[in-house]
C-alpha cells in the first residue's frame, strides 16, 4: 500500500500521531535529514598530509572519493597543530580545485602575442634542448659552470624536489639556484 505508506509519512499526520503537535521537531524531519551522513565517512581513502602554506607545518587529512578530493581538514593527531588550520590551510581544497587552476602546458613563442598549445612531452624536449644549448654556448671551464641559466624557487616545494633541483643544477654547472629564503 504505497499511497498509505506515503500518507503515514506525511509530517502533518506524524505531528499529531507522534507527539510533536507544534511540528517543530522530529515530525518535520525529512527522510534526507534522517539519513544524512558526513561525506568524510563515505571516503574511499584518507591521505595524511601537511599544509602547503606557511612553515608551521599543520597536519591535514585529505579525503578522497572516486579519485577526487572531497574534503581537506586538520589532522588532530599532530602535536603541532592538533587538528587546527588557519584560513589558508582551511582553503587548501579550494586552492587545489579552484576555478583558475591550470591543467595544460601553455607555450608562447618569441615575439608571440598569445599562448599556444604544446604537448607536455614536446615541452620537456624543448626545455632540455634549450638547457643543453645555453650551457654549450656559455661554459666557463675554469669554474665548471654556466652563468647563462638560473633556477628560482624551492620554499614551496618538497625536500626531495629541492634535492633533485640542487643535484641536477650542480651536475649541469648551474650555480644561480635560489629560492624564497632570500626573499
Amino acid at each position, binding site marked *: 500500500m504505497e499511497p498509505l505508506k506515503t500518507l503515514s509519512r506525511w*509530517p502533518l499526520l506524524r505531528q499529531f500521531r*507522534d*507527539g*510533536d503537535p*507544534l*511540528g*517543530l*521537531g*522530529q*515530525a*518535520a*524531519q*525529512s527522510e*534526507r*535529514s534522517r539519513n*544524512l*551522513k*558526513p*561525506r*568524510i*565517512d563515505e571516503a574511499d581513502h584518507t591521505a595524511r598530509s601537511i599544509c602547503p602554506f606557511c612553515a608551521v607545518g599543520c597536519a591535514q587529512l585529505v579525503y578522497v572519493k572516486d579519485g577526487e578530493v572531497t*574534503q*581537506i*581538514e*586538520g589532522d588532530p593527531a599532530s602535536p603541532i597543530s592538533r*587538528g*587546527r*588550520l*588557519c*584560513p589558508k*590551510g*582551511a*582553503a587548501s*581544497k*579550494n586552492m587545489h580545485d579552484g576555478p583558475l587552476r591550470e591543467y595544460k602546458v601553455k607555450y608562447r613563442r618569441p615575439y608571440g602575442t598569445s599562448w599556444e598549445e604544446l604537448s607536455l612531452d614536446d615541452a620537456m624536449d624543448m626545455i632540455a634542448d634549450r638547457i643543453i644549448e645555453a650551457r654549450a654556448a656559455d661554459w666557463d671551464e675554469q669554474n665548471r659552470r654556466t652563468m647563462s641559466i638560473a633556477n628560482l624557487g624551492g620554499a614551496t616545494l618538497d625536500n626531495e624536489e629541492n634535492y633533485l633541483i640542487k643535484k641536477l643544477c650542480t651536475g649541469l654547472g648551474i650555480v644561480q639556484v635560489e629560492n624564497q629564503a632570500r626573499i
Partner: protein
Amino acid sequence: MSALAQPTGSPAAWPDTYGDEAKPRMGFFTDTSVCIGCKACEVACKEWNLIPEDGRLWTGESYDNTSELGANTWRHVAFVEQRKPLKLDGGGETAELDAEPLRWLMESDVCKHCTHAGCLDVCPTGSLFRTEYGTVVVQEDICNGCGYCVPACPFGVLDKRHLPRKADDAPLSLPLLGKKEDGRVWKCTLCYDRLKGGHEPACAKACPTDSIQFGPLDELRERADQRLEKLRAERWNGAQLYGRDPDDGVGGFGAFFLLLDEPEVYGLPPDPVVPTAHVAEMWRNTAIAAAAMLVGVAAAFVGGRS
C-alpha cells in the same frame, strides 16, 4: 504554544519528540577574548558546507569584508577597532601620541540556535526543524523559499540565496516555476551531518585558538561562567556573556558568546526576543479583529439596500 508564550530554558520540541534518539543539546561557546580574527572558521565552514563564494567587495570596515551573516556566510568575523583599554587597569598601549590605548575586538558570529527560535517557529513547511541535538536546521530538500524566517530572526542570520542554481538542480521550465536562482534560505546547521558522524563542526575544529568551542551546552555554560569569572578577575574591559542566560528573550542561545563590549558594538541586538513569544496574544488579538470585522460588515447592512 504555551511554551512559547512563556519561554523556558528548554526548546519546545527537544528532547521529547525524539524519544530514545534524542542526543544531548550541542552548541558553541565563542570566546572572543582569544579570537585572533583569522577567519579560518569562515573558510572551514564554506569548504565543508560547499557554500559558494559570494562576491569580492572591499568594505574598508577594518579587516571585515564579509560584512554579515547570510545565505553564503554562516560564520562571520566582526572586527571593531577602538580607542579603549583592553583591561581596566592599564595594559594595552600607552604611546604618547594616542590619548587612549587601542584595542581591536574580533568576534566570530554564527547562528544562535536559539532555545526559542523565531525562524523555526514561523517556518510554514517544516523545513526548519529542531534536530535531535537541539539545534535548528534548514532542510535544503524541503525549503520552498517563502522567506518568512528571514525577518523573523532577531539576529538577521538567515537569508535567501540569490546565486544561480547548481547544474544538477535545474528549475522546471514552467511559468512561475521556472526560477533560475537557488531561492532557498540557508544558514549554519551546526554541521548537522558531521554531528551525525560523530565529528565536531568544521569551524570549531579549524579554530586555531579555540575561540570557538563546541560541546554539550550544559558543559559550555559552565566553562563560560568560569571564563567570565577569570576575565573579570583580570579586569578585562566590558567582558560579558551574551546569550548564555536561559531566561532571556529567546530562552538562551545554543551558540552563545563571551563579548568584550556591548552586543550592539558587534552588530548584535542588545536584548533579543523571539517574535513568537507573543504569538498567543497575537492570535487572540487576530481572532477579536476577525470577529470585529464580521460585526463591522454586518453593521454595513443596517440602513437598507441602497
